[in-house]
């Protein structure tokens, strides 16, 4: 009797058909148990209920072109009508630019192009010249955008320059006093500091007040995406530094600063944004002397910036509190000053930790911009709603189409911010996870 010993490996059999390929994936993910099978069928049924009508409404039976509302009336075109994209098309200029004069709209386009053109290389980590880019975005771009959008040529008057000269003289005096009498600082540093403040400031004012031949466009004509972006971007950019300062102040040892920061934060967090906007647009004019009239958009910008700064401060404070004491003590042991410690050790770690919270605040702010409607500014949503009242475009599907388009635009922006924040989190992740 011979023992049979296999001299060759048995041929490898393919895995059972039910565990590979599409079938296997389906079994594993959709039909792995009775409950899952039932849920799968319910899900499929829901998709069947929801998706085909949306596709039908948005694409198949939608109206893409038309002169006026008649194109979107089913009794006029003789078929069932879904979305009325012709309305969006007719109002597209207003949705993007508001009521900005048609012949001046290239200025807004230029601001959009410059902004996105500088922002994209800024947020893509592998591209060079971050420092120059940041300088352009934070220092030059706001001035350029301001002049392009408003037309510049601001009437400042000699009173301002006299006041400015007096201020510079006082600051120089303080610097001189601090250097020669109190001997806290070097005279050169003091003069340098004053110059660093005064020269750019004077330059900005000078450029803004120069007549560059641009027709002035007042802010009441701005609208649509322009207002949404101006309010959101100003709020986002201003809230970050103010919020960080407030968060630091709230954790400060100095009682006056701490009290001030607490009062500021609690006040702005304690009132609804709508109230702030109402106060600024309805009450403020009554208290100001006649003739003194703040620009409505400016009032909103200030209100939104302060409001979001208070929220940002609390988010940043959350990050500061999560930094272990050892980090502070280590920094102090190295002999770093308070600001150096914050800038080089504490804040980089704290801010990285609260990226989701920061972006949350940004996205919330972006969507809150729709509230400016109640003070008579027409943001993206407001200008679309306003155009619902055009009798030439009054049809059963006008408002649905308008709202759908607004939703798509908002989603693109908010989803973009959210994806970018996840990308940054992963990039900065240095293994503080458990």
């Amino acid at each position, binding site marked *: 009797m011979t023992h049979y010993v296999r001299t060759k490996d048995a041929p490898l059999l393919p895995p059972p058909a039910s565990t590979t390929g599409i079938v296997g994936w389906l079994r594993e993910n959709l039909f792995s148990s009775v409950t899952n099978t039932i849920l799968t069928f319910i899900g499929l049924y829901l998709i069947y209920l929801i998706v085909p009508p949306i596709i039908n409404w948005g694409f198949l039976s939608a109206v893409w072109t038309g002169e006026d*509302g008649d194109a979107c009336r*089913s*009794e006029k075109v003789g078929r069932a009508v879904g979305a009325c994209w012709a309305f969006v098309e*007719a*109002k597209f*200029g*207003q949705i993007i630019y*508001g*009521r*900005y004069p*048609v012949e001046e709209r290239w200025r807004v386009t230029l601001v959009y192009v410059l902004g996105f053109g500088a922002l994209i290389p800024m947020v893509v980590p592998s591209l060079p010249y971050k420092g120059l880019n940041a300088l352009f975005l934070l220092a030059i771009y706001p001035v350029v955008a301001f002049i392009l959008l408003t037309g510049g040529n601001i009437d400042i008057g000699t009173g301002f320059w006299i006041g400015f000269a007096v201020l510079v003289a006082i600051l120089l005096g303080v610097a001189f006093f601090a250097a020669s009498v109190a001997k806290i600082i070097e005279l050169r540093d003091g003069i340098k500091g004053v110059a660093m403040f005064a020269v750019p400031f004077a330059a900005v004012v000078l450029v803004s007040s120069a007549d560059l031949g641009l027709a002035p466009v*007042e802010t*009441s004509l701005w609208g649509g995406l322009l207002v949404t972006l101006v309010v959101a971007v100003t709020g986002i950019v201003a809230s970050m530094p103010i919020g960080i300062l407030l968060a630091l102040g709230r954790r400060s040892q100095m009682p006056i600063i701490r009290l001030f920061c607490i009062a500021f934060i609690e006040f702005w967090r304690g009132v609804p944004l709508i109230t702030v906007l109402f106060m600024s*647009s*309805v009450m403020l*004019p*009554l*208290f100001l002397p*006649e003739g003194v*009239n703040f620009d409505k958009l400016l009032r909103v910008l200030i209100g939104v910036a302060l409001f979001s700064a208070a929220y940002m401060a609390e988010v940043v404070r959350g990050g500061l509190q999560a930094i272990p004491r050892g980090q502070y003590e280590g920094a102090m042991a190295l002999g770093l000053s308070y600001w150096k410690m914050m800038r080089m050790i504490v804040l980089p770690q704290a801010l990285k930790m609260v990226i989701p919270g920061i972006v949350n605040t940004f996205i919330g702010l972006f969507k809150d911009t729709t509230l400016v*409607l*109640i*003070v*008579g500014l*027409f943001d993206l949503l407001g200008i679309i*709603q*306003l*155009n*619902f*009242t*055009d*009798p*030439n475009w*009054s*049809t*059963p599907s*006008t*408002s649905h189409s308008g709202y759908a388009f607004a939703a798509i635009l908002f989603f693109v922006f908010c989803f973009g911010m959210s994806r970018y924040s996840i990308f940054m989190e992963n990039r900065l992740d240095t293994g503080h996870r458990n």
Partner: protein
Amino acid sequence: MKSKIIPIAIGATLGLMATSASAATLDDVKAKGFIQCGVSQGLPGFSNPDDKGNWTGIDVDTCRGIAAAVFGDASKIKYTPLSAKERFTALQSGEIDVLSRNTTWTMTRDTALGLNFAGVNYYDGQGFMVRKSLGVDSALKLGGAAVCTNTGTTTELNVADYFRANKLEYKIVAFEKADEVVQAYDKGRCDVYTTDRSGLAAQRLKLEKPDEHMVLPEIISKEPLGPVVRQGDDQWFNIVKWVHNAMLNAEELGVTSANVDQMKSSDNPAIRRLLGVEGKFGSNLGLSNNWAYAIIKQVGNYGEIYERNVGPKTPLGLARGLNALWNNGGLQYAPPIR
């Protein structure tokens, strides 16, 4: 007792502020070179943006008429879209020069709020819309009906008054937004849709099958809408009042934007006075003597404005009705220029 001081102080301050804004509006307007006109945040046919983003509508044309009279140029005007809440503060604080925003002339507003209504550019009133298939031809046959309307408006109160006075049963189905009300009515959740008649005409366009609905003849409330100015500036009040009157007189005399130049050489003394060929009526207002000519030439007479914005040929398709001239059975009646 102490707690009453602060509200009084605030009230007094507000009062002071309000009166301080009542200096000569005409001088202010001339100095700044344009008229700041308060309009609505969108009401079809009254003030709404067109495809290019320009404001159009009856209320807008009233403002353009004022600009034409003051500057001889109907485009020297800036618009402030105002919510219903903001509108009176904006006028009192001097933020706007005239409020032309489908505002109903009521006694409280005319007296206690310190406002002046400079005429009525549209006589509106609350009406009912029903399905034709309901087979009802009068609101008095609406017993037991479900009525769709907006919440918290006088519309709701007017319905209650009307049905109670006529001893009819009814059920209110109320919503926050006009769009929701239309949807509910269109989906058959109620038999009747009630709001101002101009509003009914506008909302009707949003129905799936507008031709299957009709507006009943009854009007159950008075809503005279007109331009508003601050109290205490009679000159400006007169200007706004007479801009409207000039538009009415022009229609009555057959002067239109098309024939106004020929009409200047008309023999009719009333037309000659209107167009400033005779008399010094413009300078009595503090304006130039061809003030009315500019209004008619650039904006048109009342009939033209009506037809252009809300008349039968527009999507709104509102018949003249109460807004016809007095000699055509309507209420629009202007004092003569003499």
